[in-house]
């Protein structure tokens, strides 16, 4: 009885889902598999700079000189629109800055505070424990200043996109005119006033004006030539660090753990072999018929 009911229910589900399949197949056969879109056809996948990053790969280490340069790009260019709200000035110690430098960096920030005598809202110089807050007082102001798009917090950007480090690099170096092939194929595609074409951005038009426009836009303290490509690499590396400051530390802890586990597993295997050696011939251990 239960099996009759079961067969009945099973056929029921099958009929309904195959009916849906038939409908889908009919639509696919008569209308094709949905229309191609410009966003799909002309979106490019992010790629890293030639030679990659020093922190790439399982043995990768931070390049602190590069992270310092990337911080400088963030501070001088990106911070006029983007916050890094999970990064405190004191965290820069990990990039090799001295205490004095960190205090000076902090003092250069303006942070909303309260006057200790009158209780009035004031703007005070930052402290090492302060975070890199948004330059805008609120989201409405941020959107109003940026063609209705809010510049996102960059702390986690490198983890919040597929292949995030490469994505930041590609995005910053990926501004161009819309290619003529695109215009030929999708005549109705346009880049509205106030938006910028970038083939790495998912819908191809974004509200961020190209932030890195000229070689030498920042003057690197370490004398590195500040080409657009160099600045893009440096800030991408820096944002990888802000997204996961423990990245390198994590991998470094991984090796001894793996080594221990490998050793312990080999021992466990030998122990298992030893224990079982008297019991059974290994080959027919499970006693199963041939051919499975």
């Amino acid at each position, binding site marked *: 009885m239960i*099996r009759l009911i079961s067969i009945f229910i*099973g*056929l029921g589900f099958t009929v309904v889902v195959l009916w849906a399949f038939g409908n*889908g197949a009919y639509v696919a056969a008569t209308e094709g598999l949905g229309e191609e879109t410009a966003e799909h056809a002309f979106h490019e996948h992010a790629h890293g700079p030639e030679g990659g990053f020093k922190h790439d790969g399982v043995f990768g280490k931070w390049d602190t000189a590069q992270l310092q340069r990337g911080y400088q790009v963030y501070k001088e260019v990106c911070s006029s629109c983007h916050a890094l709200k999970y990064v405190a000035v004191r965290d820069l110690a990990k990039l090799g800055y001295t205490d004095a430098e960190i205090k000076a960096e902090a003092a250069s920030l303006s942070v909303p505070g309260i006057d200790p005598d009158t209780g009035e809202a004031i703007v005070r110089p930052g402290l090492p424990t302060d975070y890199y807050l948004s330059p805008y007082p609120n989201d409405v102001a941020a959107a109003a200043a940026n063609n209705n798009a809010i510049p996102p917090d960059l702390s986690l950007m490198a983890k919040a996109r597929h292949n995030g480090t490469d994505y930041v690099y590609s995005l910053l170096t990926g501004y161009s005119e819309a290619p003529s092939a695109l215009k030929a194929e999708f005549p109705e595609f346009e880049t509205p006033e106030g938006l910028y074409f970038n083939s790495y951005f998912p819908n191809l038009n974004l509200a961020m004006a190209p932030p890195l426009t000229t070689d030498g836009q920042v003057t690197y303290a370490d004398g590195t030539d500040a080409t657009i490509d160099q600045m893009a690499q440096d800030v991408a590396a820096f944002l990888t660090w802000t997204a996961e*400051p423990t990245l390198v530390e994590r991998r470094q802890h*991984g090796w001894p753990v793996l080594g221990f*586990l490998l050793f312990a597993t080999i021992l*466990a295997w030998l122990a298992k072999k030893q224990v079982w050696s008297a019991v059974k011939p290994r080959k027919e251990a499970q*006693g199963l018929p041939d051919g499975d």
Partner: protein
Amino acid sequence: MSFPWAKQYTPTNPVMKFFDEKLPLPRLVYDAVGAGYPVPRNLSYMWNFGVLAGFFLVLQIVTGVVLAMHYAANAQVAFATTEHIMRDVNWGWLMRYAHANGASFFFIVVYLHIFRGFFYGSYKAPREMIWLLGVVIFLLMMATAFMGYVLPWGQMSFWGAKVITGLFGAIPLVGEPIQIWLLGGFAPDNAALNRFFSLHFLLPFVIAGVVILHIWALHIPGSSNPTGVEVKDESDTVPFHPYYTAKDGFGLGFVLIFFAIMVFFLPNALGHPDNYIEANPLSTPAHIVPEWYFWPFYAILRAFTVDFILPAKLWGVIAMFAAILIWFFLPWLDKSPVRSGHYRPLFRKFFWFGLIPAMAVLFYCGGAPAEEPYVMFSQIATAYYFLHFLVILPIVSSMEKPEPLPYSITEAVLGSDEKAVLGDNTESTA
């Protein structure tokens, strides 16, 4: 239980003797996972996954309790406290990555454990209760993991919660009130986050309780084995300790190597980048996908695209829940007296060339966007899935001619068993 030849616990140490009289805990351990528990001698590595699942449950509880010390279930700060764990808490990144990847490994080992059961007919008499409790555990795990994924309050947390609780909205009449009641509001917010945290903390302990029942039920008939032939004699078994403690120890080490590779080198590979964006009710992600371990069932949900008496969405919800609930009936649907797929030629073909490919397709399509051709693939696979359990298993089990079984485990392993009676090789589940 135990077989009559099981070794007896005989403490010699006075402390242990004292314990054994007042609180026979050492005896319990000895009889459950020690030398006092005889186990078939021919178990394959497929029998390792139960112990591994237990390990990962404990790991989830330990890492989860530590995370809960630093996490705050408030929609204003949940995302920030998760980042606080990652950045400021000593070893916080390790706890969080171990917990998130631990959930994935928990599901990997449990899926293998379940499919071991499908192939070897482990659900059949006399082990029905073990199987039923296992399905309960799986349902509880799914609920726990779903609510856990909401806690970091990223974009996928929020939108996943919205989509899944929205499923209840498909139920006619009472659907919407139920959805509002579950969430404590019209959309996921503080109320939902708080209750999910509370339940996410509670359910693993409920799971631990059901696991104890699962193992209790297991110890009555004892483990099955790859031949599916029941234990007949002492020569068919070995004591759990040291034989299976050694084997499980090796299996654990082997799996932990892969776990360590994920935690230390690829901790976000199984996650979704959108969950590193804080929840935003005003911005819908391009593709809302649950965690990978829900993909087969998510594919089934989305396979029902056309109304058929009932609305398509309701069919999807019913089918998704039914896809797991039908496992409860398996012991009574598959009536073949032979347990192991190794002796069932027809069943075996449907298993390897039907169920496994269908599951693979459902896994793949559940993670893909709801577009053609993925939807059509998942429709075919969904049809097969239900046919397999509800139609093929009952029919195959009544028409198939099984291959000859060995007289006993001993005969299967050693080639002969002096106790074998000529012609008696049709051992049944009775």
